[in-house]
């Protein structure tokens, strides 16, 4: 139970950061926090509530949540790489604020 609470807190904290911080680096970091919360939730839920948790047949199901969590870690890494690359190029132009990229819209 406490795992879920911690995960939700982490997610909310990250969301708060994403919505309020004006520096892109901080926003990116907050996104990482949100993703961490989500990953934690996946692991906790799969181990606690996965159908047949603790049984041989259910291991498969419980493991699927953890597998998704691992996949998520890879996505986080990729996201961080792309995000940081964009950030680096923005820094080269001397722009690090969220307001500076508003015109980059479709």
């Amino acid at each position, binding site marked *: 139970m406490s795992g879920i609470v911690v995960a939700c807190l982490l997610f909310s904290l990250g*969301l708060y950061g*994403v*919505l*309020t911080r004006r520096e892109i680096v901080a*926003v990116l970091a907050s996104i990482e926090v949100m993703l961490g919360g989500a990953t934690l939730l996946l692991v906790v839920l799969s181990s606690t509530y996965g159908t047949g948790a603790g049984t041989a047949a259910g291991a498969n199901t419980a493991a699927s949540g953890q597998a998704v969590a691992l996949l998520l870690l890879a996505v986080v890494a990729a996201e961080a790489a792309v995000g940081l690359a964009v950030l680096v190029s923005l820094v080269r132009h001397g722009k690090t604020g*969220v*307001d500076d*990229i*508003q*015109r*980059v*819209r479709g």
Partner: protein
Amino acid sequence: MGVLTANAYLAVLVPLLASAAVGVFGRRSMQLSCWGALAGSVSVLAVGVACVLEPAGRRSVSLGWLASSSGELTIGWHADGLAAIMLVVVGVVASAVVVFSLGYMRRDPDPGRYFALIALFTASMSALVLADSLVTLFVGWELVGACSYLLIGFWYDKPSAADAARKAFIVTRVGDAGFMLGLAVLWGATGTLAIPEVLGRVAALPASTATVAALLLFAGAAGKSAQFPLHVWLPDAMEGPTPVSALIHAATMVAAGVFLVARMWPLFAASPAALQVVLVIGCVTALGAATIAVTQTDIKKVLAYSTISQLGFMFAALGSGAWVAAVFHLVTHAAFKSLLFLASGSVIHGSGTQDLRDMGGLWRKMPLTAGTWMVGVLALAGIPPLAGFFSKDAVIGAVMQRSVPAGAALVAASLLTGLYAFRATQLAFFGRWRGDVQDVAESPAVMTAPLLALAVAAAASGAAAGPVSRLLGAEAEPLSIPIAVMSVVAALIGCLIGSGVWGRDAGVENALPRWLERWWMAARSGYGIDDLYRRVVVRPVIGVAAISYVLVERVIIDGIVEGIGRATRRLGHGAAELQNGDPQRYAAWIAVGAIAAVAVTVWLGR
């Protein structure tokens, strides 16, 4: 002869082709165009004479023109006695006018257009009188109106002429709207517009339908024949060349209304109420226009109001049931009025003015014109033994029988006729010359020859009573002596007053007693009817159009359309605001959305 009567359509076709030929080839050649137009009018005359002489050879032909749900609309011709009479009138007057125009329009730079239009008019008029169906009649009816429009506005750069042309067309079209409704009523009631069939079924019509149809047709007739209250266009129409006035606005087209009523006689006869209206309108017009004619200073306007007044005589006769007398008066009137118009044209041509106050003593300088004018004036006044006497006597006699007050009004109008006729004669031909031009001379022979020809017609056409009645299939009414004496005495009194007063002092109108002067000025302006129409009809219509264009069209109807467009665009702009490029705003919306989605899911799954 037989060929002509069997192919009466030649009276339409030949002038039509002549018109086309003149319009295309006669661009600048006076002679060529004149001969072309003359060929047209002579062919009308020839067909007319043939039909008069050989009544047995009449032929009528009818072609399907347009199919409708209750039968076919037909066009075709039907050369009966009435048509024959009208063809002769049209042919004679048109021929005289064409020849006269050769002199009158000599210096005009555009003879091709003039003579082409005259020929086109002749063709249309023939189509009108030969019509065997109301559709054909209406076609001719509108086409003569269009020719009238084009000829009144012949000198189109003159604003007054252009205005007069437009007014003539529109005022008559008001009557024509009634005519069209009348066609629709007859169409609905009888299921045909072929004249013989319509007239054959008139007896079976309910009285109210007959009255409505007759009155609607009469609206068209009143417009064309310039009867009160649609008479306002005819005086203005004098802006056209004078020969045109003689042909269209004295002898032929304006008489088409009388012709229409005569043609549809059984319909009118079936409705005493409609006849009553015709009688009243005729008498009011005859008397009213005569009073106005007395006061006019323009020689052509005198004649114009005189024409309106004489047409009123004809309608009064129609309203009294004496349609034969009306047609007879139509014939004699065509002769003497076209004569008077052409004579006035000769006067205008010679003296360079049409203002009676600037004329005087012209008989010495233009003896032939003056002599023929005198014939015309005496015929107009109804002095025996000239033509007007016989026909007017027949008219007044018939009206007297029907209604004494109406007859009295016509006798009074006869008196006024004598008065204005001799006033104009005195002012133009007698007294001393008051104009500026000094070298006034008689018009050339090409103009006086038609005058002489028409003078003979005006003098002698009184003898046509018998043939006209026979052609119309009626007995000629014997001359009624008391009526004749009364009308002649009235006319003579008018003549004597006219020549006496204006003979003594041409400027008598400038020093009228106060009571008379007010009336005089009112009559001179046509009793302000023009002004009234301008204020009550013309300006309100234009005003309503302008206001409703702004208010209804732009603000309401288009406002709604443009409003919907603008609202959509504004909605789009509002939605676009959401997507302003701020990723944090996007994220916030995503968060809100996610929370909402969860909330909804939870709430639904409860």
